């Protein structure tokens, strides 16, 4: 599966996802500027992304813990904002488009 990720200067990166890994892990390993300070524990909101082009609705909805944690993220856009550590790679989301949120 592929992830199409736009970085903070607007450059698009197509990254190969791995089944069962989080989108955060894939983007971070690909060198995108994802801080992910807590390492993927849904505890810091520094892996915030915008999910684009109708992909938001195709994801399983955020957990209460993620909704709470998004309160600590900057520039949250309802209906677009997710924590990428909580999006799990699987074939159903092949081609998902995300944009790294501002720091």
């Amino acid at each position, binding site marked *: 599966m592929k992830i199409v990720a736009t970085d903070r200067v607007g450059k698009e990166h197509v990254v190969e996802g791995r089944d069962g890994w989080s989108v955060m892990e894939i983007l971070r390993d690909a060198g995108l500027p994802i*801080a992910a*300070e*807590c390492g993927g*524990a849904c*505890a*810091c*909101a*520094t892996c915030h992304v915008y999910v684009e082009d109708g992909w938001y609705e195709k994801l399983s909805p955020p957990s209460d813990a993620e*909704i*709470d*944690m*998004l*309160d*600590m*993220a*900057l*520039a*949250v*856009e*309802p209906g677009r*904002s997710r924590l990428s550590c909580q999006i799990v790679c699987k074939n159903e989301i092949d081609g998902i488009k995300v944009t790294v949120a*501002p*720091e």
Partner: protein
Amino acid sequence: MSTPIETDVAIIGAGPIGLFAVFELGLLDLKCHLVDILDRPGGQCTELYPEKPIYDIPGLPIVTGQELTNKLLEQIKPFGAQYHFGEMAQALKKLPDGKWKLTTDAGTEIVAPVIVIAAGGGSFVPKRPPVPGIEAFENKGNGVGVHYAVRKMETFRGKNVLIAGGGDSALDWTINLAPIAKSLTLVHHRDGFRAAQHSVNQMRELEKEGKVKFHVASVKQLLGDENGNLMGVTLSGADKKEWTHETDAFLPFFGLTIKLGPIAEFGLNLHENLIPVDTAKFESSTPGIFAIGDINSYAGKLKLILSGFHEAALMAQAAFHVCRPNEKLRFQYTTSSSNLQKKLGVTA
């Protein structure tokens, strides 16, 4: 100016690795002072994930960040380290006698032959909203402009205050400042809050009484007068409609993030915000300055707590030779050495 503190080792960072360094240094009779910008020990473990279980600490199949911190504090208790919490290590200077002087933003000065940087990713600092030109409105004081913390409530008396955020800080300061501010407005991106329920109830009560205004909105722009003073902000609502809101002060509360901070100015060799070290001593390219835990880099580095523990043990051996150049170091085991057991306070 108070007289500088003299000690063997000054440790920057009281996270798990800084704390365990006290243990390894303590076994070698080296005394430590720790500096941490947070107001309590534990670093990321207690700041980011106090309740989250950690599964890869050898011998502890499951332990939370807070529990691990508590256990480390118990383990290092015999060594009587001194803590300087809520202080940021700000400057490092080499003295003529070869020792180092570490100065904090609170003015504390620590003089030691060895500095151990166990600062993780750097300092926890407030998150700054990505609003253009926000820096220009910071540090104005007197309850005007942009503030990331409330030092004195009185400075906001009679002011129009705008708070952004949905966590405990945002709600607590909304409740506390509402009675003294001229007006208090809270904005958040949703009509729900992660803050404690009783705080949310209190805020809703104040809203009903007309003492707090709440909008589902976010701050898009800051508006200043010709002298650069904050006049108001542009808010954008859930329907993307924008309007101007007049305010004297803007207090964004989005928690903390990690920035390298003043360590970048210490004059150390840095590689991608990490301190390269050798893997025998975990010393930086500047003699007497060691780096352990997430902040160092070397071939094969893994950012794991257990790696930091190993690094602390080897660092301590090398630090001993810097602190006690004329003494011989005898390696001993805690299981068999009555000398070490005495230090740990476990012998009768």
